[in-house]
């Protein structure tokens, strides 16, 4: 008798429960959205006096960007969309949104940059340049010149990000096609390869001439070594030096649980900002920088245990940030629109972590580091936040927007690209 009633009761409860759960899910997602109280901040949290607007959206996987002196925008798409890997956006009626859009360059890749009347762009193996007319428009998009080719691409860490100095050189990242130079990439307990042969053609910065065609590795200068992967880099005009942001290694806990808890592994190692001069060695894969102990620590792959240091001293970072946040853009601000404290300081676009699971993820913001006389002069601070759309991000797929590229406009505004939804933000300051 009891058995006959049990089933309908359970069924009724299940129906009620699922209706209730459905209602809860929709209302909880409303709670997680940021309040739209500041219509002039494009959903972002900014310091006082700053506003933001969305100048373009749904552009695709918008990686790095460049703004011309006319205020037009070049975007490099990570994957070409409809045969276009570079977009050129214009705002002819000056209403604050780029409506006019053309595209070219049927290749994937990360970088675009403007120099001496040319647009430079990189695929994952090659650096091209396109001649610009006096309005900074590409007149012959089907015929770029090849500046460098044959750069290694094995998938992992393949962004060929680059920047220029003022002496006719460009500096390109060739990321290591490995996490920590293990004999077996990402296999728990696998030790590091002796002498890490990856370093001879990857895991560093190469310098090439900006106006010599068809260069290969042998024509370049192996400018810096021991950098795992650099997606954000910029030339510091005050120092006359290259600054880079390194993506630190992953999975200390997964690969060596004996030495690292999940909590330690979520914040270590530091994401590092380095000032790079010719011949510098930042130490990957042999050491990482521990921002808590404030020293270089021997990697477990090479006999470390979280405490041991290496025999050799490598380059120290000029600033260390919490682990895994993914610094994808670096820009030294040289404009006059923002208050004095921002002049010659560094903006960093942190793409947002994935390697903090099961802890919450971190990053998904733009940070500012004040500089004086070419060196950091104070603590880093969060400048623009709220890109992810949620206060707590557990997995990167759930982040609404992920900051990737930075550019400075002719009026001194800061442009930020998002490679998740292809939104382009313009951040401005008014006294």
């Amino acid at each position: 008798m009891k058995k006959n009633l049990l089933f309908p009761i359970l069924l009724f409860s299940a129906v009620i429960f699922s209706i209730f759960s459905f209602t809860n899910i929709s209302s909880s997602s409303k709670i997680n959205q940021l309040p739209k109280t500041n219509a002039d901040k494009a959903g972002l949290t900014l310091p006082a006096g700053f506003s933001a607007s969305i100048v373009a959206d749904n552009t695709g996987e918008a990686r790095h960007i460049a703004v011309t002196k006319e205020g037009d925008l070049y975007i490099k798409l990570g994957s070409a969309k409809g045969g276009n890997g570079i977009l050129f956006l214009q705002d002819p009626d000056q209403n604050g949104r780029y409506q006019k859009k053309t595209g070219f360059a049927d290749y994937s890749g990360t970088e675009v940059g403007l120099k001496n009347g040319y647009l430079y762009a990189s695929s994952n193996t090659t650096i091209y340049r396109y001649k610009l007319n006096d309005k900074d428009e590409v007149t012959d998009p089907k015929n770029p010149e090849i500046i460098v080719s044959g750069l290694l691409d094995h998938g992992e860490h393949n962004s060929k990000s680059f920047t220029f100095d003022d002496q006719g050189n460009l500096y390109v990242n060739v990321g290591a096609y490995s996490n920590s130079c293990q004999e077996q990439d990402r296999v728990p307990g696998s030790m590091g390869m002796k002498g890490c042969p990856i370093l001879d053609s990857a895991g560093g910065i190469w310098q090439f001439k900006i106006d010599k065609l068809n260069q290969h590795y042998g024509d370049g200068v192996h400018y810096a070594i021991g950098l795992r992967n650099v997606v954000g880099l910029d030339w510091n005009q005050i120092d006359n030096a290259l600054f880079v942001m390194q993506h630190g290694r992953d999975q200390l806990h997964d690969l060596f649980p004996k030495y690292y808890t999940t909590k330690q592994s979520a914040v270590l190692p530091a994401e590092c900002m380095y000032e790079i001069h010719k011949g510098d060695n930042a130490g990957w894969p042999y050491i990482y920088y521990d921002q808590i102990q404030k020293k270089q620590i021997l990697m477990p792959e090479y006999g470390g245990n979280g405490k041991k240091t290496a025999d050799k001293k490598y380059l120290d970072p000029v600033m260390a940030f919490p682990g895994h946040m993914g610094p994808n853009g670096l820009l030294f601000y040289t404009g006059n629109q923002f208050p004095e404290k921002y002049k010659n300081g560094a903006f960093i676009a942190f793409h947002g972590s994935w390697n903090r699971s099961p802890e919450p993820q971190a990053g998904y913001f733009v940070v500012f580091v004040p500089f004086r006389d070419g060196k950091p002069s104070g603590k880093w601070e969060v400048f623009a936040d709220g890109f992810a759309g949620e206060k707590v991000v557990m997995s990167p797929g759930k982040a609404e927007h992920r900051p990737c590229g930075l550019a400075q406009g002719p009026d001194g505004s800061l442009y930020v690209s998002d490679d998740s939804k292809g939104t382009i933000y313009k951040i401005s300051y008014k006294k």
Partner: protein
Amino acid sequence: MSNTSKDFAKENFITGVQQSKTTGEKIFKKYCISCHMADGSGVPHMNPPLIQTKYVLGEKEDLIKIILNGIGNVEINGETYTNKMPPLKKILKDQQIADVLTYVRNSFGNKAPAVTVTEVKAVRSKNT
């Protein structure tokens, strides 16, 4: 927990799958979660999602081989995922592989038959 009696085979099959899924979730949280995330959504451009993909829902032998041998540069719906998944043949035992695959094939919106330890053993012995 094992049962060889034919009389209770059907009930114990269902219980066995549930047990496998429960154990599999623990294995997922220890070995898989850092790359594939707790919700199975992976990482854009780097680590593939496990949500209703042909890899997860397809042939058991192919999926078992992925756990044993690893895989890299996987393409799903036009996107390439560039991180390498390591071979886990020396890290996970046959029963653990059966459990974690049963868990994955019945989580994140997936619905697919369980993977058994017998099936894993067979693939591992053929695996060169």
